[in-house]
């Protein structure tokens, strides 16, 4: 955790020195940075929820926005850039996952990684205590047991994507997205009844 946080700070120092000598940003650069400001946290959170590490997630996010810059520079479609950005991030995370699996370096599959990320041992704040830690633990165990695609649907919905956008990112039909979300929420409901 300490090392993960240290890396962006080092990058910031290096980047700041580069920035000091760089000329005034072009309007396109400014536009991409503005989109980064809007989307970075959401993209990174989604990537973490799929089991990508913080450091790899940051690299993927950088790659996404460099790809976005080239996309816009070539005059390609500006239609629904939010879904475009999530789609590229998702594809890169899949590529990252496949590469890690090939190298036999990934010891946890994405399902276990999400459960792990949601079960991170952290000091509960008063809000958490009010909500009830038992119920949270139950929810987290259900999340960890969900199929990968159902979990991705839920994460993307939590990031504010519409069903159509989720379908585009995960290459699913609208009906399949609705079914997946309904199935996951039904699991929550059943767990609540127990």
């Amino acid at each position, binding site marked *: 955790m300490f090392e993960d946080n240290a890396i*962006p700070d080092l990058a910031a120092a290096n980047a700041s020195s580069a920035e000091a000598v760089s000329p005034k940003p072009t309007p396109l650069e400014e536009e991409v940075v503005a989109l980064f400001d809007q989307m970075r946290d959401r993209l990174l959170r989604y990537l973490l929820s799929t089991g990508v590490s913080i450091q790899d997630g940051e690299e993927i996010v950088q790659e996404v926005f460099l790809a976005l810059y080239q996309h816009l520079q070539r005059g390609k479609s500006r239609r629904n850039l939010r879904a475009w950005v999530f789609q590229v991030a998702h594809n890169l995370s899949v590529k990252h996952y496949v590469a890690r699996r090939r190298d036999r370096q990934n010891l946890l599959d994405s399902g276990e990684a999400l459960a792990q990320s949601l079960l991170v041992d952290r000091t509960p704040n008063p809000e958490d205590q009010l909500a009830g830690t038992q119920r949270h633990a139950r929810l987290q165990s259900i999340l960890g047991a969900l199929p990968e695609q159902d979990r991705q649907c839920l994460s993307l919905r939590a990031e504010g994507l519409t069903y159509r956008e989720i379908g585009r990112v995960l290459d699913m039909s609208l009906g399949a997205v609705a079914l997946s979300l309904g199935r996951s*929420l039904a699991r929550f409901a059943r767990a609540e009844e127990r």
Partner: protein
Amino acid sequence: MIFMLSKDSRHLHVADQELLLAADGELPSARAEEVASHLAECWTCRVRKGEIDESIRDFVHAYRGNLDPLLPSAAGPRALLKAQLAEMTAERAAVPQGWRARWLQGPHLRYAGAALFVAVLALLIYLRPAFESRQGLRIVPVSFPEPSLTPGVAAAMNRDEICGSADPKNRIVPASLQRRVFEEYGIAGASPRAYEVDYLITPALGGADDIRNLWPQSYSSAVWNARVKDALEDRLHDLVCDGRLDLATAQRDISSDWIAAYKKYFETDRPLQ
């Protein structure tokens, strides 16, 4: 009206699926009004909708509450992105942009290509009746399928199913189906060894066992032959499974013009083999 009959009463209730769509604002406006009007009257559905809303709240709470504390500050990555963008802009500005480069990037080349394509197409249409009367056969395909006979058909498979398959290579086309393909292309008497009855969209990319997805590809073609297409299929399969290319694009590219797709994905004008 899609209402569901509940098990414990004779009243009609809104299905959970629709309650979820209503909670997510995904229902068409007319239907959303109907559901809202039903909810105003029905305690059972209101309670059920409340449970769904609560499940959504619980998930968002767990999701944000556990992941947000892990997010590092955006300041460093933001500065890094700005520096990389400035570098890309500088690199682009350093490339000479002479009149020739501008002409090649402009629309002229596309217009010229389109005009050439139309001219070749017109010539083929003009010459085809004479050719057929001489040969008594349709044009025998060499490197490219006839779009009217083989538009390409994909099965309803997603990327995970395709990439999870133990054997993604082409399946053997049954002999009876091969004969039908030969007949359709007017080469019923041709030697089966001269052609590979090939899937236009390979099963390794979700291609269907459908005659509209099959065509006789010549082994004898010197340049763009069946072995070259096999290499493209392997390449696209790897790209899709590595997450570098979405499945629909791979299927579209290989079915619309596989030679252009080869040039695009191998970044070459000639087969590498």
